[in-house]
């Protein structure tokens, strides 16, 4: 391309009339979201730069952050929560998303009978409130009520049963798996919707080409739903690093035993709102929230600016 071409393009574009419709499309979401969500959150995160000094809230700069990472106990709590959270996330990535994708792939097989029933049934856990999920799983896994031991007895695995939720070694994994159980519906739905989007003709062509079953999934469907897989990964990341409710209902705000299931969300909650006789410390809570926010922001930016741009999208 010659130099002059470039200049012509550049001078041609600015003349474009103002595209008001873009503003119209964006305005309602922008206004509601900014007013009800962003401003209050900024108001809160702002607190991370303040602290109570002599009974008055005063600007302290980054002192809270220094304290969070400098104070051995706070730092230990934070890093413990962070590493638990990372494990929590990895378990979801390794278990929840593959299962969700597999379920969606099976459900979207054309002509599968009872697909709607399966889909709804599998989605039911996602519809439940945390209260019930926490309650029911505690009941099931409770050594006292014996549902899990009895079920495992049926398949001869009783000896493997243990009070999983109460042991530091197994509690985090167990809670993660409960969360997986509850949330599998989300990747499933998203991937299912993405799979429905693939035009029938393309799949028919694959059938003719001898690409059926699993290889059809790997070679045709998967590449076409890759953007959705990107989305569920990022949503899993964001959701997991923001997670709170399930741990809270299953393990309590202390996320025991001995902090072994403490993740950033529970740590934040305890710090910000306080718990039992511990008083809330909004500035420190806001500090933790800001750090969490930065972690998540880093992940999401990585996705938005690097991964999302590389993933190819195909129009149907």
């Amino acid at each position, binding site marked *: 391309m010659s130099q002059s071409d470039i200049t012509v393009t550049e001078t041609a574009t600015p003349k474009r009339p103002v595209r008001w419709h873009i503003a119209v499309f964006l305005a309602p979401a922008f206004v509601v979201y900014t007013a009800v969500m962003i401003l209050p959150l900024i108001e809160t995160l702002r607190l991370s730069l303040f602290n109570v000094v002599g009974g008055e809230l005063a600007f302290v700069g980054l002192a809270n952050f220094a304290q969070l990472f400098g104070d051995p106990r706070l730092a230990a709590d934070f890093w413990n929560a962070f590493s638990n959270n990372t494990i929590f996330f990895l378990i979801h990535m390794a278990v929840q998303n593959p299962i969700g994708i597999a379920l969606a792939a099976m459900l979207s097989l054309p002509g599968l009978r009872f697909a709607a029933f399966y889909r709804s049934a599998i989605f039911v856990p996602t519809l439940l409130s945390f209260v019930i999920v926490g309650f029911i799983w505690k009941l099931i896994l409770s050594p006292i009520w014996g549902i899990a031991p009895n079920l495992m007895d049926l398949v001869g695995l009783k000896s493997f049963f243990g009070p999983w939720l109460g042991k530091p070694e197994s509690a985090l994994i167990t809670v993660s798996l409960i969360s997986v159980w509850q949330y599998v519906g989300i990747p499933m739905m998203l991937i299912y919707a993405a799979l429905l989007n693939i*035009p029938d*003709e*393309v799949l*028919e*062509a*694959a*059938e*003719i*080409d*001898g*690409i*059926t079953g699993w*290889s059809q999934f790997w*070679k*045709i469907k998967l*590449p*076409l739903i890759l953007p959705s897989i990107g989305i569920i990964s990022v949503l899993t990341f964001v959701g997991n690093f923001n997670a709170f409710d399930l741990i809270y209902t299953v393990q309590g705000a202390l996320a025991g035993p001995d902090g072994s299931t403490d993740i950033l969300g529970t740590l934040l909650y305890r710090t910000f709102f306080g718990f039992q006789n511990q008083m809330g410390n909004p500035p420190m809570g806001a500090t933790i929230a800001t750090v969490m926010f930065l972690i998540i922001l880093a992940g999401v930016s990585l996705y938005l600016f690097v991964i999302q741009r590389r993933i*190819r999208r*195909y*129009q*149907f």
Partner: protein
Amino acid sequence: MGSLQLSSIRKSFGTHEVLKGIDLEVKDGEFVIFVGPSGCGKSTLLRVIAGLEDATSGSVRIDGAEVVNTPPAKRGIAMVFQSYALYPHLTVKDNMGLGLKQAGEGKAVIEERVAKASTMLSLDPYLARRPAELSGGQRQRVAIGRAIVREPKLFLFDEPLSNLDAALRVQTRLEIAALHRRLKATMIYVTHDQVEAMTLADKIVVLSAGAIEQIGSPMELYNRPANLFVAGFIGSPQMNFIEAGRLNETNASTIGIRPEHITLSREAGTWKGRVEHVEHLGADTIVYLETDVTGLLTVRLFGEHPYAADDIVYATPDAASMHRFDAEGRAIRA
């Protein structure tokens, strides 16, 4: 190896019956062309043969074996879809090679066959592109390429050349004919192009509204159409149909005469008429004239002719080339 029997294939979409009992026998290695008006069921029939669509009733046999329960992949077929159905995420090369790869062919074999097909279809510069970056004709060629690299025993082509220019079309047509000879594969081919149908087919099947009107070799259909429909459908411009009464023919209901079987003269002839419109195609000239006896008459003349609208001319039919049809539209054979 590649023979096909269809017996009383019926197919309905809801209450709408698209195929109304198709019986057809295709011998191994035959080149069969389906023609018929838009919407008559050609693509549907191909899809039934491929196993993409279940027939409502009837049986499909490939090499004598009933294939109702054989998945498309196992039927040993390749298909070019009318809508191309390319894999949007794969390059041209991978679009063509995927089937082979799946069949476990070696890398070298795949490379070679894809290269051959792409050269044949002039796709070499586009091998690394994805379908969205191709023109309509290029996409269509990729679709063809994808089918032919697999070299199966039965090909199903659904209007594979419709978006190609004349030169490429002739070339690709010849390539397909060569492929047919080389692989001795059975080919079933849908086209709207008369030249393709006439030049490629061993056997043409004329379909209309989901039923077969006539099966025969190209020249058979041209020279001895079984009925009014076939007579009108084969040949372009269309055959002229004249009410037999007007020509004082009593043992027929309709008389048909092809535009190319009428000669024109400014001086004298059988029917006197006035030129309505003239189309100059370069190699041919099509004259539309209105005569008192026959009504509107289409005449096809070889080469260029300086007729113009409102000229008075005389048309003379070649009596030997006239077709007679009875009241039901069936051809009356002498």
